[in-house]
């Protein structure tokens, strides 16, 4: 036969070649784990075991703080939707899953607001670009929840009311702080220059731009 066989010599001590000591050692390791987990489990003391299993529906893994989860629409101080229908997020969305139909807002200072705001969570790739794109902290993905399974595809499309139901008031100052944001972040209270339009309700003094819930 033309097939060459290369014999690899693996010298080893008799104990290694007899397998038995290594087998006994291996059995010892597994047996230690078994005893520890078994008795911890039987006595109902999961803390004392090494078991890593999460019993899912009863126990849930807490998502990390920066997890991108289900979307929500933030609210104004008066509970209205914060979105101004600027169309940034549907434009940037790589999955084309945001549908916005704008309408005129009754409040003349706001101009636009969404009449329809729908996100198809089945098509969403959870990239978070919509959150990055939004100029006024109107859309967020920090619900620490994931899209729920549904029986029908259509149920996975979230409408404006549902998105707003998870919303809270943003800590970002409504209407922005205009040209003075640098000073505000720097913590220097400043009187606006003469002639500047200060939006109503804009507080003075240093304000944290966002509250991430950090400890």
């Amino acid at each position: 036969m033309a097939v060459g066989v290369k014999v690899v010599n693996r010298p080893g001590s008799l104990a290694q070649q007899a397998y038995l000591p290594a087998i006994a050692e291996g059995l010892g390791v597994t047996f230690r784990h078994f005893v520890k987990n078994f008795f911890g489990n039987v006595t109902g003391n999961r803390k004392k075991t090494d078991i890593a299993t999460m019993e899912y529906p009863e126990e849930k893994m807490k998502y990390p703080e920066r997890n991108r989860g289900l979307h929500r629409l933030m609210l104004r101080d008066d509970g209205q939707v914060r979105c101004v229908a600027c169309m940034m997020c549907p434009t940037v969305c790589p999955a084309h899953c945001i549908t916005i139909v704008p309408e005129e807002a009754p409040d003349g200072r706001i101009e636009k607001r969404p009449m329809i705001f729908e996100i198809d969570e089945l098509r969403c790739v959870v990239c978070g670009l919509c959150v990055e794109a939004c100029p006024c902290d109107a859309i967020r993905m920090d619900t620490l929840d994931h899209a729920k399974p549904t029986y029908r595809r259509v149920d996975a499309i979230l409408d404006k009311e549902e998105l707003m139901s998870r919303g809270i008031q943003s800590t970002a100052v409504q209407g922005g702080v205009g040209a003075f944001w640098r000073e505000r972040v720097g913590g220097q209270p400043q009187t606006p220059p003469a002639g500047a339009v200060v939006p109503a309700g804009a507080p003075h003094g240093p304000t944290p731009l966002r509250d991430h819930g950090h400890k």
Partner: protein
Amino acid sequence: MEYGSLAFQALAATIKIVFMILGFLMPLASILTWMERRESAMMQDRLGPNRANIGPFKLWGITHFMADAVKFLFKEDFVPPKAHKFLFMWAPIMAMAPALIVAAIIPFGPPLCWNELLEKNPVCGQPINLQIAQLDVGLLFYFAISSLAVYGATLAGWASHNKWAMMGGLRATSQMMSYEVTMGMAVLGSFLVYGTLEPGAIVAQQTHIFSLGHYHSSWGIFLQPAGFVLFLTAAIAETKRTPFDIPEGEPEIIGYFVEYSGLRFGMFFLGEFLEIVVSSAIMITLFFGGYHWGNTIDNALLSHLPNFVFVLAMFGLWTVKVFAFCGFQLMIRWSLPRFRSDQLMRLGWQRLLPISIANVVATALVVLWAQQ
């Protein structure tokens, strides 16, 4: 009914057979299917299947084996169009039956004294042996029948009309044939020590756990430690489980039962666990004193309990032993990596066989020396 009459013997045998199969082997093998998953999970820091329940009774998920059976029942029973229908049908039975038949020679308790059921320390004039068949060829019968199990695997592989199944069947054949030789040699040592092949008589001798004075009546593990290791290795190889699961490598040939589905696959599955139970029972018989728990405990039980309670207690202790040994086999299966086919053959023929022959020769010399 008169003791010793034909009708009496037939009835006793029937009761013993029904009890052994339906009351012991099948339930234990079924529970092992669950226990294997649970035990391996505990060894790997997981939880394992713990959900199946009957109403509020969860019992750590022990009813998973029932859920499995129901699932197997409702699965499609697929027969490949080109398969050999008859052999395809019979192969699972051929794989499962030998384990059940072999159980006939296993003694599972001390003799029951028919006319002195309620007496302590009976004379035992009319004993009923708790062993289905008392064969003088005992262990030879075990080899003869358990080697038939290879037909199950081979025929399954051949009848499926599938190349992978065929390979699996061939591998099973070569493996089981190789390891049977070692197994026979390993038992020969025990035969030399105890001077009989009849399992009942072998167990009856092992009354002491270990005593130098009565070395003939010590447990086999102390008289034949090498024999035990050899037999254990060969027995695991016979059950075709890791580390010797060459016939069923999932990433390469899947196995001889690749074409089987539903309840037929379930029979292969259960057959494997039956083999574990039976081989554990045989090892308990040969090397761990069968139903005996050492002189002191045995005598205390015998003199303080009515005979039938004593027998029940000994049977219970025997069950504990068998169960623990099954657990040990599962532990081996989940601890060791698997051999390659050529390594398996080398281990069988070049290592185990010479060692087992040396063990027989050494045992024979020691026995000869002790007799003089």
